[in-house]
């Protein structure tokens, strides 16, 4: 049984990524030939239309990036070639205990500055260029580097209330805010964000994503309204193990941003996605709220609906809106938020942007268009249109880290582990189970949509 159609471009493509070659290219734009556009121009908030897609295997089975590329490529007309990107979870099993930092630099100087800053609080266990290959339509790129970091003990003892996550968040905010030509694309464990200026399928090819194996993949094709397209402005946006792909424009941006500043989040990118990421981090990580409740804060139920609830529930939702009114996301959006264990698909409270969900065995899909799901999963067990404000939640059934803990010591050259054939076998194996499990899953789905 064929799982999905591969883009012909990926068939039999054995091109190895030329790390070193790319690396030499980087120095090429210190020579003034190219103006600074990769990371600059971040001072404007650019409205953008978009296509989004996400796939999760709730059993934690990993699969390559081809599926997500195929899915997002189908929605090519939802983007305009000025931004595309992917988030992948489970891609660094061998280095899963370290924070994987994906960085973009405009200049060598910024790289040096950022590395100096990182060394203050972390031991760099490993670092290397992010593998990429020549793609015809992507003519230039910033310096792309990844680091696997272990926080130093002494960086954490300063304040007992200061957690390891707070340190990471602070580091990310510092680099993004203070080091002008450097940008942290992602900073979570065993995950990474790959993004840039171009159509998403080209970005996927550029980053050799078929070589990675992950259990959650999300993708984004961007349609910014002007040409101030910089690599950092592409989605997904990430902080810690959060990643967000987002289609929409947040009308409440001004107050959401000011609200976050109260809690020490410095929004340095002027993007709606950044604000969504920080809100989810605040509500979920810092305030310990479930994804269901986070959804009910970001896309709060209307007062008329709250009035109809049973007394206890009514009181609760009234309180929720009173406390978290400034975290309400107003305006149109369809968003996919992920962390290591979860994938959350959510619409605004009026459903002003499209979002479709599907389930097939252990797989859960969320995309802007149903066709983007059917392209990679022609016969899902169930396809549904989540209602306004109703979250679609995929949850990992087992800890993803288990398999990789013991392999920390393995050779560093091993990453990413590449084996498309084994992926197909895996997919087929899951396929069989998935069909059997389908009837049981129906029940779970109804819970999912709340």
């Amino acid at each position: 049984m064929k799982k999905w159609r591969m883009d012909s471009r990926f068939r039999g493509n054995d091109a190895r990524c030329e790390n070193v070659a790319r690396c030499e290219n980087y120095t090429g734009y210190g020579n003034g030939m190219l103006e600074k556009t990769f990371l600059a121009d971040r001072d404007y908030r650019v409205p953008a239309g978009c296509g989004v897609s996400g796939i999760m295997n709730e059993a934690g089975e990993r699969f390559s990036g081809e599926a997500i590329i195929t899915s997002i490529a189908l929605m090519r007309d939802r983007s305009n070639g000025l931004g595309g990107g992917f988030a992948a979870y489970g891609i660094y099993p061998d280095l899963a205990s370290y924070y994987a930092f994906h960085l973009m630099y405009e200049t060598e100087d910024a790289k040096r500055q950022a590395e100096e800053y990182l060394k203050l609080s972390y031991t760099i266990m490993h670092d290397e260029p992010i593998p990429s290959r020549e793609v015809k339509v992507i003519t230039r790129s910033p310096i792309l580097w990844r680091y696997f970091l272990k926080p130093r003990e002494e960086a954490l003892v300063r304040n007992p209330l200061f957690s390891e996550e707070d340190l990471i968040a602070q580091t990310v905010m510092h680099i993004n805010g203070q080091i002008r030509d450097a940008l942290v694309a992602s900073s979570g464990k065993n995950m990474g964000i790959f993004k840039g200026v171009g159509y998403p399928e080209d970005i996927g090819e550029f980053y050799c994503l078929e070589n990675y194996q992950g259990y959650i993949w999300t993708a984004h094709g961007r349609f910014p309204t002007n040409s101030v397209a910089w690599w950092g402005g592409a989605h997904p946006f990430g902080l810690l193990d959060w990643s967000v792909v987002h289609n929409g424009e947040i009308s409440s941006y001004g107050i959401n941003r000011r609200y976050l500043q109260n809690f020490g989040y410095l929004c340095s990118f002027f993007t709606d996605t950044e604000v969504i990421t920080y809100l989810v981090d605040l509500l979920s990580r810092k305030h310990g709220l479930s994804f269901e409740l986070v959804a009910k804060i970001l896309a709060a139920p209307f007062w008329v609906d709250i009035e109809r609830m049973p007394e206890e529930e009514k009181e609760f939702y009234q309180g929720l809106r009173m406390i978290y009114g400034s975290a309400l996301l107003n305006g149109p959006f369809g968003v996919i938020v992920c962390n290591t264990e979860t994938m959350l698909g959510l619409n605004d409270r009026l459903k002003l942007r499209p979002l479709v969900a599907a389930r097939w065995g252990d797989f859960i899909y969320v995309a802007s268009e149903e066709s983007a799901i059917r392209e990679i999963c022609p016969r899902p067990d169930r396809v549904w249109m989540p209602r306004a404000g109703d979250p679609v939640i995929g949850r990992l059934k087992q800890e993803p880290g288990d398999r990789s803990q013991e392999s920390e010591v393995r050779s560093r050259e091993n990453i990413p582990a590449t084996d498309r054939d084994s992926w197909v076998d895996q997919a087929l194996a899951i396929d069989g189970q998935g069909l059997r499990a389908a009837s049981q899953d129906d029940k779970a789905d109804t819970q999912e949509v709340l």
Partner: protein
Amino acid sequence: MAKIPIVQDFVVERDEDKCIHCQVCCRMCSNDAHTYDQESDRVSTDSHKCVGCHFCESFCPTSALTIRRNSSEIRQNANWKQEMLTWISKQADTGGVLLTGMGCDQPYPVYWDHILLNASQVTNPSIDPLREPMELRTYLGRKPDRLEPEDIKGPGKKVHLKSKIGNQLMLQTPILFSAMSYGSISLNACKSLAWAASEFGTFYNTGEGGLHRDLYPYGANTIVQVASGRFGVHEEYLKAGAAIEIKIGQGAKPGIGGHLPGEKVNEEVSRTRMIPMGSDAISPAPHHDIYSIEDLRQLIYALKEATRYEKPVGVKISAVHNVAPIATGVVRAGADFVSIDGLRGGTGAAPTVIRNNVGIPIELAIAAVDTRLRQEGIRNHASVIAAGGFRTSGDIIKAIALGADAVYIGTSALVGLGCHLCQKCYTGKCNWGIATQDPFLTKRLNPNIGARRLVNLLRAWSLEIKEMMGGMGINAVESLRGNREALRGVGLSDTDLQILGIKPAGEAW
């Protein structure tokens, strides 16, 4: 030397062809500007007595009357204005402090007129309030910063609130009627406000005049005020309202107290205020039990104790230079809401020189207070109610976007009841039956009609706010509150823009 006559403010023109000598105007004018001469069967007018309230003009059955400003002018002088000469002349006559009513009428910049709102185009759909819910519901009061995770956790678990949220005032629209005391305004005006607030689902404020026994049934929509004179304050009064407001200052007269002349203290006012009939009701400039912020804290908690912590207690301050730190202190002292009254806030009586020269515009005060409370991380701890000259729903929506939770309207509510801003409230001769206790005048204001007009005003402004919010693609007022990205300044200096926290018009996100 002969007494120097005061130049009259208005000229009353009577069209003799239209006048039927019915003498309605003579009976109407509480200032006795119109007189009838039986012998000649003519009605004549002494324009010197006209205050420009337009009551006779409005009710002349043949429209024979027109009130115009007096065009008599002194030699052009950029420094000396006609009104200043009049003031000096009056004071040289009497040796007294000049009094006035209503808000500051001087041409200070009105920042509302230099702030523009946003609207959605293409990238972000506007929302049609006729088709989609558009939420104006507002809760005023202290709110916790977060939900405790043990309140709720995990999917499927039943949700409940472990820690109760403090007492809140629930408003159907972010507009309240500001403090106007019984005494300064008539009971019919109070009833109009109370009935309208009750019908629309918002609140009116007793001012420092106590609560007339006829108004106790509307307690659920009443904010009772405790001011420096403590007039009419007793346990039953405190418990009758939905919230308590401690009045420290008033925008029209920051730093000074109040004075209700004995002439206005009739039997009803006397009973309500708990003072002898005919005696002046003087509110001291400070509360004599509040000489510092820690004293304010004691009063806040004394009032909370007295009402068993069942009601939010707020503090009203006037917008002065140091308003942001003062507001912060008030919040830290335990206030559940802070009311800020700006330069253009109204009054029943204030010294003209103070009304015209003391305080700062409410626009700047809202911006400064909201910014400071956020910097201090205590914005959630209290709601901010802005007051001081809101003229249209446009002003109100801008105030909310600057950071106010809700606004108080006073002058515009009175205008809705007929007020023409003649600024003579302190004389007790209000022809419209608002700022007077004269039974002949107060009966002119029918509280049923008054309440209906105020409900209409709230409804109209709420609809307009919904339309503007929908245009911005926002369907809940909490997404507008403090959302300064929705605002742009035009014709403002960099410093103004910086204080207001808004970008200049023409600048994108």
